[in-house]
């Protein structure tokens, strides 16, 4: 593990236990609802749909009866880069519309400043950045249920998972009001974490030894997505299966294409 710490500042991160994930999609729905993620009038083309939290279905590439599957939920990885504050996406933005918050480690997106050049999307290896190709669409009465804490994005700008940063702000407001400067672990939790019925997602401060994620990230089952790229993400995964860990990073050689979906 190459997770680097920037002093004692909080570094919010996530640990997702793939051994527990059933691929039910509750995290996706909770995220969509919490963050006012828009729909399209026609959702058939998934390549321009917006899903801040997306679940990949990964196979071990073995024929029956050796076939195994894993569901892999993927939020923004809130990368730290090789030195703090250097995720692949922020330094490339020409208008400073995306930023790395050194106080929390969260990578933010300023929708009103983004002018839609999409360089950040090109830079992100995890494809967590989504462009609003269409005008936001909220079918039927869903517009009435939009969260007042999260701004709705317009056509032509990029958006992404914020680790429900508005929840952090709300929790901090409360803490300041009560004369505190630090948050308890359960005061700031993301919507996907709370929605997961299997308890597969754990969220907290990776730098805080009292938070579960601090211990979980050092588990022998822990790994991160595409670690060799040097993005230093703050989302960790747990799996007891060796092939799952292998399928989540590129290894040169013959097995390179083993996990890719086969074309019929």
């Amino acid at each position, binding site marked *: 593990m190459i997770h680097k710490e920037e002093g004692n500042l909080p570094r919010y991160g996530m640990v997702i236990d793939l051994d527990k994930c059933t691929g039910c999609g509750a995290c996706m729905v909770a995220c969509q609802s919490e963050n006012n993620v828009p729909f399209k009038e026609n959702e058939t083309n998934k390549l321009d749909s917006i899903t801040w939290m997306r679940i990949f279905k990964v196979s071990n590439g073995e024929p029956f009866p050796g076939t195994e599957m894993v569901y892999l939920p993927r939020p923004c990885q809130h990368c730290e880069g090789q030195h703090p504050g250097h995720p692949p996406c922020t330094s490339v933005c020409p208008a400073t519309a995306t930023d790395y918050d050194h106080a929390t480690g969260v990578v933010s997106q300023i929708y009103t400043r*983004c002018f839609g050049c999409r360089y950040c999307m090109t830079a992100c290896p995890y*494809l967590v950045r989504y462009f609003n190709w269409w005008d936001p669409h909220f079918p039927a009465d869903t517009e009435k249920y939009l969260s007042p804490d999260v701004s709705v994005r317009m056509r032509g700008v990029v958006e992404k998972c914020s680790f429900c940063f508005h929840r952090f702000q709300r929790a901090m407001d409360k803490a300041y009001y009560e004369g505190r400067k630090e948050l308890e672990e359960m005061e700031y939790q993301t919507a996907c974490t709370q929605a997961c019925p299997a308890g597969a997602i754990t969220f907290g401060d990776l730098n805080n030894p009292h938070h579960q994620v601090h211990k979980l990230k050092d588990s022998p089952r822990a790994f991160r997505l595409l670690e060799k790229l040097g993005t230093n993400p703050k989302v960790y995964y747990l799996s007891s299966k060796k092939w799952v860990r292998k399928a989540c990073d590129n*290894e*040169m050689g013959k097995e390179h294409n083993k996990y890719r979906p086969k074309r019929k």
Partner: protein
Amino acid sequence: MQSVWEKIKSLDAALQPEGVQRAPLWKFLLWLGAFGAVLLWGAYAAFLCWYKGLNQTNMNDAYGFALWIWADLAVIALGGGAFFTGFLRYIAGKKPLANIINYAVLIGFICYSSALLILGIDVGQPLRGWFIFWHANVHSMLTEVAFCLSCYFAVLCIEYLPLVLENRQLDRVPFIHNLSHNFHETMAVFAATGAFLSFFHQGSLGGVSGVLYSRPFGIREGVFIWPWTFFLFTWSAAAYGPSFTLMLTKITEGITRKKLVSDQVVDLLAKISGWMILTYLIAKVADTVYWALVTAPEKGFAFMDFYNGEGTAYGLWILVLELIIGGLIPAVILVIPKLRQNKALLIVAVVLAVVGVSINRWVMILQMLAVPLYPFESWYQYFPSWQEVATTILPVAYGVLLISLSHRYLPVFPQERELNPA
């Protein structure tokens, strides 16, 4: 009616440079009409993109950059003939190139204005385009591109202006005549400024993919903050740009059925372009070898992982097309005097060179995005929509129109009279 047509004809003739032959007006208008129709088609597609949004394209979240960014990179590389010919003429003292510099500047002007137009269509919120200057992030290669591109376009306007002022009727006004003369006197300063700015924006365009440390196909090592692609893009623009200038010169000569630039001038520029391409190729091959053996493996990729995917058309053929067919072959033809003095071979060489540099810009954007980074994802597919194609053809039509108008009414080629005695 007859007299109106006669009046238009005499006005047209009065605007043309003295002592040169031009196509009949009706033919010229027909030509303008044909390309004007293409221009309108492109303008309609651009309007759709602005009005309905970028859902009019076939780009998607995996292909955030696509045909337009390639077109931007390609026209800027091809328009590199302007800054490098200017550098050779005014700084390096290659005086014979004065006979082709006007055309190089005109081509550069068209290429850069086209690039700015395409960028204006490509962004999701065009009305916020000024944010790139107002909220500039100095760490972003695109910021550098925007600043240098805009400044250099201003330089190109200044370089193109004296040519416009040399129009026969405008030149009769003493003030304009003197202004134009003074512009010529100070042109070395603008040429030097243009070369300086071009170094940075050509370089920063190379840096766009070179700095993406999470894209193993694009990332390159480098010096300080500059990846090697920064220097390779500048070098290749200087190398291949003059070939594009020569290609368009030969096309213009073919269409007008006249010799416009002397063989001596063409030979000099072809030779310089050839040597520049050859030296560039050495650097490019060294860069590719280091990337394939060191950079990409550190990211978990073997060289063939980028060329051997299921369900993709990308293969080693594209590398061969870029480096051998579009690189080595034109370089050899242009470097060897006997070969480049063969008219047919010269045309083959400059066309192949244009293909070579365009392929380089293509792979550095589109192939980079086609490569799946998740081991459990397939290669990403993309085919442009008609709106993308039309808006990419738009600058071609605009270029043809501007070249046609400039050639008809301005003394673009100083040797034209001498080479085509009445």
